[in-house]
């Protein structure tokens, strides 16, 4: 099988984390938002910094930079709001990114067995090979043990 046979074209959003570029499938990305106030409250999930309010929705902020580049993102300019599907639920996550993002069409090669779980494929763009990210393996909440709850959960208020 040749490269051209393996490759498939896909629409992706390029994002910059420090000096490196990564990609997310465009159908996972909702929008790029300007920096906004991060609300912090007590919790025990260290990967989550807090939440932002976006169009009336509470969106958790998860810095994936440390896992991908080894250091936290110092100069934060935007939040890339992306969707992560887990079982039947769709979670919105705000990913801090540096630099502007770019929507591209690129050739995609599926990840191989030897690739890290967070890599769902490889893009070839302007002579650069870029990881297509799988958010499921970069963000918490897909393999956590649910804590014991003391009593029945009361009914929730919904507008």
């Amino acid at each position: 099988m040749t490269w051209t046979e393996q490759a498939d074209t896909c629409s992706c959003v390029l994002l910059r984390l420090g000096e490196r570029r990564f990609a997310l499938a465009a159908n996972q990305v909702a929008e790029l938002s300007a920096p906004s106030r991060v609300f912090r409250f007590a919790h025990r999930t260290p990967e989550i910094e807090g939440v932002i309010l976006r169009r009336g929705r509470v969106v958790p902020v998860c810095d994936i930079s440390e896992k991908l580049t080894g250091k936290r993102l110092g100069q934060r300019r935007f939040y890339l709001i992306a969707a992560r599907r887990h079982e039947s639920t769709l979670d919105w996550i705000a990913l801090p990114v540096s630099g502007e993002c770019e929507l591209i069409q690129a050739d995609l090669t599926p990840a191989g067995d030897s690739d890290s779980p967070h890599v769902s494929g490889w893009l070839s763009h302007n002579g650069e090979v870029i990881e297509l990210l799988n958010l499921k393996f970069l963000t918490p909440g897909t393999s956590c043990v649910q804590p014991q709850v003391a009593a029945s959960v009361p009914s929730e208020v919904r507008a």
Partner: protein
Amino acid sequence: MRLAATSQNSHPLRTEQIILFRASTQVFAISSASVQEVRSVDSLSGVAVDINEPSLAKVRHALRRGDRHVYVVNAAVHFGLRPSPAALIFLLRKSRVALLVDGIEKMSTMSQLQALPGVFCHEERAWYRGLTVIDQNVIPVVHAGGFLVPDEISLLDALNGSRSFADTTSEPHTDMTL
């Protein structure tokens, strides 16, 4: 894919009265229906029994209510925050828990409760019913049943089982009943 604004449907708005309270430096909300009484911490003196269970540092006192003990949970310690001088106790309705808090911020009305996002995946899932937005601030709404799990109550009951309590038939002063 577009992040849609939260839906505005035509159903009549259901609301819930909540109490915004402070623990350490943070503000939380609890349904006022979950709170039976609010007392001053002064009312603990003389009627509270000391608890010293190293595995449950958030519980330092118990109160006698009828034939059962009600355990006083320090909200700041429960949430992993720096302990601060508490001023009030919430006696929770239909519960073996009383909550030690710094103070009441205000009473408010919540019209929407958003489920805690799935990326929060540790103890906070038991702590909170969800998140609400009050005055453009995101406030976690606590789950009144999340302060002590049954195993912890059993442990505390076992610890107190051998103790003899002084006669506590006289009820301590109640500052406010909700």
